[in-house]
């Protein structure tokens, strides 16, 4: 009798494995980062319509959203995503290192395989009561900050590095002074949430803190959702370019015969129609004409990149985010 459940389970696997295999590329799965849910609902609808017009067939685009590191981990463990659209190049690199994604994935699509980008900006309460203008206002004693923990959130890593880049410039490369600045910046944090959406909830719904630092696209989304009269967006003098990279998961796409559709789907993000949708959701885009059209939504800002300013992600992870890296030391001193 005790064997029965296992026999039943084995039969079930066989049954369930059937349809999963027979599934022709009438569908693809896009594994994406956490806060891109609404965006890809819109993108998928537009691409589905285009695909239907061109081929006469229908394509179902399934969505899976979670922290992009969790998604990468799930794909390594067998989540059959045909494409990934992440907010961290490092998470696609993990897939490339294990052979799931082409080693030269950044060269497979234009602009470093990043059809759109964003940057950390400040969201303050209506009327900007604390008069926040730039990074140096965030180290004042009367200002409390909300952004997620850089240990767990890619979003917060950009925030941390943007503040560091500002400090490096402001103190003319004086490392000790820059270090003190970042230390004070971290000590002003009221709540360290684990992810970007949770930080939004803390700032918007629990009403904690004076400044939320998150991606510009999220701040525009918040204003759309909760009312433009409730919050103001402050774009600092300098910020960090956050690439949102994409890739075809070759290992899955080759097996499912979906490579062509997957590639076409990602190319759609670069088309004027795709870029328009991305811009409508508050992302800065590459297409000049589309960027021009949405120029009013995006304030001018000087952007530095992780490559130029910090020598790339591997160096950053080692120096700042590794165990006993600079971040740990700055947090420990509090």
């Amino acid at each position, binding site marked *: 009798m005790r064997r029965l459940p296992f026999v039943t389970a084995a039969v079930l696997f066989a049954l369930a*494995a059937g349809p999963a295999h027979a599934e022709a590329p009438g569908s693809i799965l896009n594994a994406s980062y956490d806060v891109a849910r609404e965006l890809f609902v819109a993108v998928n609808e537009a691409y589905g319509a285009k695909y239907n017009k061109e081929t006469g067939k229908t394509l179902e685009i*399934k969505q899976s959203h979670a922290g992009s590191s969790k998604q990468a981990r799930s794909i390594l463990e067998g*989540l059959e995503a045909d494409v990934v659209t992440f907010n961290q190049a490092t998470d696609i690199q993990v897939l490339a290192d294990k052979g799931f994604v082409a080693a030269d994935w950044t060269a497979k699509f234009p602009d470093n395989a990043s059809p759109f980008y964003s940057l950390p900006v400040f969201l303050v309460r209506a009327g900007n009561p604390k008069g926040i203008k730039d990074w140096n206002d965030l180290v004042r004693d009367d200002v409390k900050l909300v952004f997620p923990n850089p240990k767990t959130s890619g979003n917060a890593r950009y925030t941390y590095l943007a503040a560091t880049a500002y400090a490096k410039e402001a103190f003319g490369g004086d490392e000790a002074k820059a270090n003190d600045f970042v230390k004070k910046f971290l000590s002003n944090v009221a709540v360290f949430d684990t992810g970007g959406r949770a930080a939004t909830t803390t700032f918007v719904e629990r009403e904690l803190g004076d400044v939320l630092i998150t991606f510009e696209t999220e701040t525009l989304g918040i204003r759309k959702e909760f009312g433009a009269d409730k919050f103001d967006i402050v774009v600092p003098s300098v910020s960090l370019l956050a690439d949102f990279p994409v890739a075809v998961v070759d290992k899955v796409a080759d097996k499912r015969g979906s490579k062509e559709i997957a590639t076409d789907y990602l190319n759609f993000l670069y088309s004027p129609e795709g870029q328009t949708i991305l811009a409508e959701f508050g992302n800065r885009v590459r297409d000049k004409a589309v960027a021009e059209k949405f120029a009013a939504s995006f304030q001018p800002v000087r952007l530095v990149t992780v490559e130029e300013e910090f020598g790339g992600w591997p160096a950053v992870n080692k120096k700042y985010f590794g165990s006993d890296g600079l971040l740990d030391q700055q947090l420990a001193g509090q």
Partner: protein
Amino acid sequence: MSAAGLPRGASSGWSRHVLLGSVLLVTAIVIGAPVLAVFVQALSQGLGYALASLAHPDTRAAILLSVTVALVVVPINTLFGIAAAWSIAKFRFPGRKLLLAIVELPFSVSPIVAGISYLFVYGGQGLFGPFLEAHDLKIMFALPGIILATTFVTAPFVARELLPLMQLQGNSDEEVAATLGANGWQTFFRVTLPNIRWGLLYGVVLCNARVLGEFGAVSIVSGNIRGETNTLPLHVELLYHDYNAAGAFAAAAVLTVVALVTLLVKTLLERVSGQAGARRGH
């Protein structure tokens, strides 16, 4: 227990009221208010909105998936529970204590640990990963994985209900049946099963409630594919983070209603089995 049996001080009106009052207060704050809030939030944008969000294809798919999982897992764990309780209660064999401990293990293991350990065994980088991939068997991030993880977490419910019952009843009824010439199956269906039926139903109801509510283990092995591998509890979280609180609470209300029905059935079963037990005793 009567008040006469307690020390004088404890039974004085004053302290009894304080005790009773604080228990009621804590119950209201900790249990009552949140349950009420689920329904208030669910209806915050009107009944029409709540029903419309339940009719959304992704929510419908989540409900259907949860029901499918329950339809598979509850029978498996019912059979397993009867078999395990039967062998532990009615027989003496080496490893009996060990079997008992293993059956109860899922109660003490955090569901998230259960989920991750399934990944280590059946995931792409796991023990059987290469084998499963070579044979194109998909377990993780699909229905089989969700069923497996849920089965693990809810395995002890039926067994745990039946064990004390079977131990209490002992072997005498079965021995009588055997002397009268009944074979094993006859003994089981005509003697053992009627004796344990209320306890069995009770276990099945509890198991079912937990299957529908399981979150932690499933969240690891699900892959969060909307409309495909999102169970109802996962879908509640997803909707909540989509700024769709009313939709999330409408889905949560479905789970809460299931829980309340479970509670009702459980109370009825307790009453019925109490009467059955009393009759047996006389």
